[in-house]
């Protein structure tokens, strides 16, 4: 029996990505954010999540993709790692999928250095490729001013 993993999937630019469902706390519509001066654009702002202050990360910028057009507004995926709770800004939400290990492959060499660290690999679905995002690494960065 091969292992299956449950992934919460979403869309970003023309990519289809997924993160482990256990990491996802909730999904929200676009929220009003407070900008953080002096922080690079990858930090989209701060959100008030029922009294908790959560940093919103622009995932497009984090993955060095094209910046989004102003419409449609991004969706927040609230992600909880052992250290932090952050929000990832994505274009759209997909379904929760069960994927099995036997269609998993490590990252192709076509990805550039930085981004390669953040993608653990991909699942070859019948229609398209599902990229497996390493949430811990995505969240682990510090901003210097």
């Amino acid at each position, binding site marked *: 029996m091969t292992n299956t993993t449950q992934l919460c999937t979403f869309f970003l630019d023309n990519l289809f990505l997924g993160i482990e469902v256990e990491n996802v706390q909730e999904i929200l519509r*676009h929220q*009003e*954010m*407070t*900008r*953080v*001066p*002096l*922080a690079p*654009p990858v*930090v*989209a*702002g*701060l*959100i*008030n999540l029922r*009294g*908790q*202050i*959560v*940093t*919103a*990360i*622009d995932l497009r910028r984090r993955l060095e993709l094209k*910046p*989004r057009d*102003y419409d449609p*507004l*991004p969706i927040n995926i609230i992600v909880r790692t052992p*250290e*932090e*709770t*952050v929000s990832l*800004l994505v274009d759209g939400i997909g379904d929760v999928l069960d994927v099995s290990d036997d269609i998993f492959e490590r990252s192709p060499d076509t990805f550039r250095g930085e981004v390669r660290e953040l993608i653990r690999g991909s699942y070859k679905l019948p229609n398209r490729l599902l990229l497996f995002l390493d949430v811990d690494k995505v*969240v*682990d*960065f*510090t*901003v*210097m*001013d």
Partner: protein
Amino acid sequence: MEIDEDLKEFLVEGYEHLNQLEGDLVALEQSTSDPEVINRIYRHLHTIKGNSGFLGLEKLQEITHGGENLLSRLREASIPVTPGITNALLQVIDAIRDHFESLETTGEESSRDRTALFNQLNALPVENGERIKDEESETQTPISNSPSPITNSAIRVDVNLLDKLMNLVGELVLCRNQILEFANKQAVNAEHDDAFKSASGRLNLVTSELQEGVMKTRMQPIRTIWSKFPRVVRDIAVSLNKQVQLEMEGEETELDKTLIEAIANPLTHLVRNCLDHGLETPDVRTAAGKSEVGRLLLRAYHESGHVNIEVSDDGKGIDPENLKQKALQQGIITPTQALQMTEQEALHLIFLPSFSTSKTVTNISGRGVGMDVVRANIERISGTIDVETWLGKGTTFKLKIPLTLAIIPTLIITSGGDRYAIPQVNLLELVRLDREQAEQRIEWFHGTPVYRLRGNLLPLVYLNQVLQLENNTEVQEYSGIGKTSNAHKQNLSPEQEDETINIVVVQATEKPFGLVVDAINDTQEIVVKPLGKPLKSLACFAGATIMGDGKVVLILDVQGLAQKTLITSPDKEKALVNEDSQSVNSAAIPQQLLVFHAANQRRLAIPLSKVSRLEEFSRDRIEYLGDQEVIQYRQHIMPLIHLSAVLSNGSPGFQVRDRQSEISEDKQPVIVVSLEGDKQVGLVVDQVLDIVEQGINIKGVSPQQAILCSAVIQGKVTEIIDVHALIEQGLSVVKPMLVEI
């Protein structure tokens, strides 16, 4: 390892008893025959023994029993306490501590052999060669009548529970803020209004009191960490062959529990430092004319939202030159830096990692890893540490710790369209300048705007610039922030401000500075929430909070702002310092200057050598030659130049009457200036101030041709006129008219 609940309780209590025991023992050493002290020691030992019995800890029972025995023998025989006895008792305490630690880690008592100690205990006290028999202790009656005065009015509470309470109170404060906002905005229904307002008012009061109360539960007197110092100081002094008297003032000063824990280690290190490096040995001290016994003072007191803790000694002090030498040797600073360094800067060298000037590394200190860790620990709890020293006389370390971290009063300001919070603890005052005042009173100094606040120069920092608030429009729109204030694009250049200037005078650790913001909102108590890991290293922000309307607002870190923007170059710093102290820089050759007001209260000066006479003319003597004002003066027709005309827009031939001169009496002060030959020109001014003789240190240049430079004269920024350029400009139309009659 999971510790049994009972064992935990036992240990917690036990440590408390031990600390008090130690304190008492050291006191006993110094005043050897106070019976009350002996009684106390006995009681503590007795309690530990009793508790050990409950838990079946035999070894502890035995050793405490041994100590008790010795004490009772002392009392019965009325023998004064000898050093041998106190040493033995101290060893008993060490043994007890050893057992406690062993219990904590392994759950078992220590297995170390104590026969030597027992023998020693039994052999004491030796008086006239007599040996006192061992006694069975079962029938011993407790000495002092009453059991230890354990007050039943106290109760032990788990710290975690208190933390939970604190969090809840924090949330309550946020809710209260929200309710208050609604209450303030209510305008609709009058009846409901009143009831709602009074209810929310009550909520406000109750919440504040609850907040205070819960914070108090977590406060502990600093005595809790100081109590171990008598022992520590005694031990170290003995090992170093120094004589030290420890004094403690303000041990009842209270601090939040977490803060107390955080400063325990730094304080210990500082004390050790003083003992090791500061205080000298008795012979050195007597040679220097000091008393043999050195003095170590620990002082704690509250002051405006902070707790100040001072560790001072009357030892040999710190030599800044020595520090500089060492730093040079280690290559930490360059020779030029060493020359330019102030004494304070040199003293702060001790806080650098791996910096140590002691020639020998002892067990205690000198390894050079101490002071920087001390400072880091203090700064981690948002405190500051400073050092003062007097060569040959002593050194004082001053720690300043904020009373609480979680809920703080702040001032809310708006800048660049967003709100920010400034902790009130950093706030000194607020200054508001309207446009005119701003133009006049903000001076420029080495490229930095400054404002003269009651004689002191206040560097100004434009918050919009520091936070680069104009440049982020892309981010705003991109992330969908619906701000309407995008329309107010602030100009970067302050000279072009149309609006009033709001200056918030703030101070972190060193000099105060003025933060220029768009608007000042109100004061609010907020709950400090830390920023996430990605943002923690942004120096300008100390955290964030949620306002009454649910929006997230960043809290400014004044210290971080200062470091980021201010005067970091030693030149600028020096320049400002010199300004402040109004010292006359000796480099410049003294010149005689005539200082006056003209052109809308500008302060100007002209070399006295150029001045021919000072006159006052009544207005009706002024006549016109074409467009040029002239006056008949000593058989000449002398043209008059109004300085405001030349200086405000520099275009020749355009004469504007000084508003000032219009309003005042018809006597017009004029400075008569002579040019080549007998030609003279009159400069119309508002008021002649003074004649001074001082060196001119050029502080800045002006784009205006008529102004030579600016300097500080009589403590004020003054512009020095270039007479020729001025006259050139003022008279270009009429120069041909300079004709002798």
